[in-house]
């Protein structure tokens, strides 16, 4: 039995661990992949107080070491469910079940998928959700970007420096970002494809082409080796929907106090409804959630 179990070892979860340990509580942090969360993909962080320039990996490692030195326990197991038994919460992972008085859900978000057949199978074989991570593998090749938001536009601009040709495919008649069309027009190798949807991924061992359906119903095959999906993010709250109120986009509905619909279960970080999703606001959530959890434990 732990005082507090934290689900997710990103900046919010690890900051919560630091605060909970400093309040004298026993803490277990459960993480599905590696510590750090999304921030480890950032080459540079220039807006975190006291850090002029630090890499995401370095930042995450410093925070991990800080939490560990204070005595937080880390286990790398994916959490599949939480059960509320009042003063005890059962947290089940792929490997075991753990008990705590309070739980902080700091699971962050993941890239939204297109939801087309074979999409998962082709990750790492042509399908990618991070242009800056994987773009360099597509030097001199044709690629497509799916999405009409600012990330998709940035991805297309970035990839145009590496790839032979970049198709930007989006469902809407217009791109959502003001002035995006003009910016993209400066790059001859970017082809805009408004009011189009991707209907299939054609692959043998790796992606060879995609089928695109136009507004008038006609279909077209585009020979691309890479498809970069930039259609937003999904908060990872699905497994906890029974205990946490979620809004229509799946974010945990909670005020600045990080409380949820279930007493003793708190949320922190990017999976919470909030105005600004940044490293510093994730850390702030972690501090608040841990402090509220400690307060809650006193009532048991």
């Amino acid at each position, binding site marked *: 039995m732990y005082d507090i179990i934290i689900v997710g070892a990103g900046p919010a979860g690890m900051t919560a661990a630091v605060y909970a340990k400093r309040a004298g509580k026993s803490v277990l942090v459960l993480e599905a992949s590696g510590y750090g969360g999304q921030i*480890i993909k950032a080459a540079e962080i220039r807006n975190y107080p006291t850090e002029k320039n630090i890499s995401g990996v370095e930042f995450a490692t410093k925070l991990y070491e800080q939490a560990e030195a204070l005595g937080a326990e880390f286990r790398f197991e994916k959490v599949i469910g939480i059960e509320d038994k009042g003063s005890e919460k059962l947290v089940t992972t792929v490997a075991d079940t753990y008990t705590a008085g309070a739980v902080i859900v700091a699971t962050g978000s993941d890239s939204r998928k297109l939801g087309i057949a074979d999409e998962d199978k082709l990750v*790492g074989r042509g399908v990618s959700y991070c242009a800056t991570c994987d773009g360099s593998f597509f030097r001199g090749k044709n690629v497509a970007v799916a999405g009409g938001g600012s990330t998709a536009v940035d991805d297309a601009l970035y990839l145009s420096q590496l790839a032979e040709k970049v198709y930007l495919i989006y469902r809407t008649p217009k791109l959502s970002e003001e002035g995006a069309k003009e910016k993209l027009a400066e790059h001859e190798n970017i082809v805009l494809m408004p009011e189009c949807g991707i209907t299939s991924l054609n692959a043998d061992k790796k992606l060879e082409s995609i089928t695109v359906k136009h507004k008038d119903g006609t279909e077209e095959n585009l020979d691309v080796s890479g498809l970069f999906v930039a259609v937003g993010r999904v908060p990872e709250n699905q497994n906890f929907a029974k205990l946490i109120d979620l809004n229509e986009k799946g974010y945990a509905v909670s005020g600045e106090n990080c409380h949820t619909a279930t007493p003793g279960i708190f949320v922190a970080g990017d999976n919470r409804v909030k105005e600004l999703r940044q490293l510093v606001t994730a850390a702030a959530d972690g501090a608040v959630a841990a402090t509220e959890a400690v307060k809650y434990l006193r009532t048991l």
Partner: protein
Amino acid sequence: MAVIKVNQADFENEVLKADKPVLVDFNADWCGPCKMLGPVLEEISEQRDDVKIVSVNVDDNRELAEKYDIYSIPCIVVIKNGEEVNRHVGLIPKSAVEALIK
């Protein structure tokens, strides 16, 4: 045994002709998740002698990356008797890495 750095020149001897399964970690210096995976692989390599773990820098060994169709890193490819038997793309915990070798 520690993780061994291999390149195009010694890949055949170190990996394809190895007398046990080889876990090849394709990575790069600029890749954050790769940096997190490194210590995990180092730990496994110290604990197990039934598997060999090697590291390939994709920037220095583009031909190898292309030969193995590496389009995202970290990418772990398990090779047995010169043939690929398993692969995984992305950062995973130690238990999941070990499951790839089973």
